[in-house]
């Protein structure tokens, strides 16, 4: 029998691909089910956090209504009949959270980008690994260490700097002070936070910089660019979204920092724009400040404040993710 293989005739259209399935063995089905279930734990935990904080904090929300967000008064008192009169307003603390985070970013982002540039492009090989380890180690310092250092070591120095800034730049509204009292201010808290988030932003920036496509770098050099010219033309445009992503991660951390800020801040329930002045607060440190002596109603309010903090940091993290993912997609 002669085997005749006719050449495959061209078909009008390619057939649809077949669906490839398998029936997993029982042990594998159990395995996959267990693993999948556990993986959703992240979702479950996040949801539970939201749910419980909401339900336990609900009474505070209901009682205070919108004032929870707009008022700055936080007091637990009783009126003439012995009935509780509570005011829980987060406005001052929210303002403080934003102000301190702004000061922290203002200091930390340039410092981190410069350090990342130095580590990636200027540091000699032998020093580079050492310095990188130091920066990574910095990220592991417990936050209470920053609190201790911030209060005892940085405080006096920063107070002196604040006085200097006030002396020469005090004509700028938010750098003036109602009274010459400079200890434990949002400015100092901002510096402490800045030092805490520098390692995060630096390591994200460093990773992005080290991934700069080599062909663009060489193109710049071949055109006669100096090292700084190359950085300006190639590295910074390429890494800009990575830097922004890193800054937002740092921002999230700055929003949620408690003990470090508590140690160097004088928490007062009054909105304060004068960052050099010894008055301020942020939501996280306020919570632990008030917790010790809080009665049932106040605890509910503090839990509600915790929910606000939770939502805020989630939003910042989502935004950071979005920025970084968009950068990755556009192939920059």
């Amino acid at each position, binding site marked *: 029998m002669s085997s005749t293989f006719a050449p495959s005739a061209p078909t009008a259209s390619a057939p649809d691909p077949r669906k490839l399935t398998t029936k*997993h*063995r029982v*042990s*594998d089905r159990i*395995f996959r089910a*267990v693993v*999948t279930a*556990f*993986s*959703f*734990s*992240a*979702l479950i*935990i996040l949801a*539970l*956090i939201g749910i419980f*904080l909401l339900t336990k904090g609900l009474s505070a929300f209901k009682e205070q209504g919108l004032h929870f967000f707009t008022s700055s008064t936080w007091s637990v008192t009783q009126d003439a009949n012995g009935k509780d009169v509570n005011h829980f307003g987060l406005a001052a603390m929210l303002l403080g959270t934003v102000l301190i985070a702004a000061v922290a970013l203002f200091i930390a982002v*340039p410092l981190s*980008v*410069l*350090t990342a*540039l130095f580590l990636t*492009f200027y*540091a000699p090989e032998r020093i580079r690994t050492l*310095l990188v380890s*130091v920066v990574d*180690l910095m990220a*592991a*310092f*417990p*936050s*209470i*260490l*920053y*609190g*201790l*250092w911030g*209060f*005892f*070591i940085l405080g006096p120095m920063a107070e002196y700097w604040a006085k200097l800034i006030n002396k020469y730049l005090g004509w700028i509204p938010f750098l003036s002070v109602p009274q010459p009292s400079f200890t434990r201010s949002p400015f100092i808290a901002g510096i402490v936070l800045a*030092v805490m988030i*520098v390692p995060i932003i*630096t390591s994200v920036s460093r990773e992005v910089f080290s991934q700069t496509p080599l062909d663009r770098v060489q193109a710049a050099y071949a055109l006669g660019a*100096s*090292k700084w010219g190359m950085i300006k033309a190639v590295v910074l445009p390429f890494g800009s979204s990575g830097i922004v992503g890193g800054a937002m991660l740092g921002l999230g951390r700055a929003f*949620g*920092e*408690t003990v470090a800020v508590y*140690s160097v801040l004088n928490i007062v329930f009054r909105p304060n724009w004068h960052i050099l002045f010894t008055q301020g607060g942020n939501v*996280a440190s306020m919570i*632990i400040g008030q917790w010790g002596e809080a009665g049932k109603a106040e605890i509910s309010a*503090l*839990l509600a404040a*915790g929910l606000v903090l*939770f939502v805020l*940091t*989630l939003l*910042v*993290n989502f935004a950071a*993710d979005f920025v970084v993912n968009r950068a990755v997609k556009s192939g920059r």
Partner: protein
Amino acid sequence: MSNSQSTQVQPIRPWAASTSDRAITGASVLVSALLTYILVATTPLKGKLAYFFVFFLIWFIIDSILISRRYGSKGVRDALAAKVTLFGGVIVMLAVASILWATISKGVKGLHLSLFTQTMRTTSFTDPFSNGGMLHSIIGTLYLILIAVLISVPMGILTAIYLTEIKGRAAGLIRFLVQAMSGVPSVVAGLFIYAAIILNTPLRNSAFLGGLALTILMVPTVTRTAEEVLNLVPRDLREAGLAMGATQWKTVALVVLPAARSGLITATVLGVARVAGETAPLLFTVGVFDAINPNPFKGGSGTIPTYIWAGLTAGTSDSVQRAWTAILVLLMVVLILFTLARTLGNKRMKAK
């Protein structure tokens, strides 16, 4: 035709800094330092700030004069950029050095042997710091870590397995959620345990609850590192197992996980380092306690971070001294954990 004789030609690097270049740089630094000193001594400028800024300014000016001769304004701009980045790096290093120096110099004073053998059961925080010790808080922290590890490591590894082995349709979502979870502030984790458990069940402050709060903070770190590590296991290992007809779970359990073992240990160690120093969540779930409590499920417990917190907030010089010494101990622990994670990680890299 070129010669192909073996040459005695020596490799050189004409672009590298020559000795004369280095000498000039060294000289300019010294001259700048001298000028800085003179300037600061004779003008109203004072303080570390003055020294720092004036030095960099003078050094930049001297350097620019030397450079502009040969390289023009472009060279000066390049040199300025180099100095500014150095400036930034130096500031960061100074901050780290300051923190380390403060911890060591202040903490060492309070080190005494009974620190590790006694508790605060009979001592008050404001008593002279050579009395009492932190044994209870060390034991408490160990309980916390144990509980956190027992829960978060399996959780983290299983989640990582889902992401790398099963790669289901929800993988993107789960990765996103893990990332979101890593951004949860530590205080929120503590509040959550309080709201969910203390307010709803008869359970009260205990090391167990503290461990649960730390778990929430630890799971994202473990998951992310474990995912990276599992992805590094070469595909052919898995394919070898599956090609022999093994089920997926057998392949994962007997082939993939052992291959990634040291990396998974690194993931655990990194997670522990992350949560060992957290204070805020413990304030809501464990409280401060002065004696050893052998039962992690009932009753308060001492922990290192709360010990430090109590020392700091008591406010006297003795109590603050306790805090410094305790943070020195904590820092040493974190440092050891970190170096451990690093060496394990490097060994893994080298072995590959």
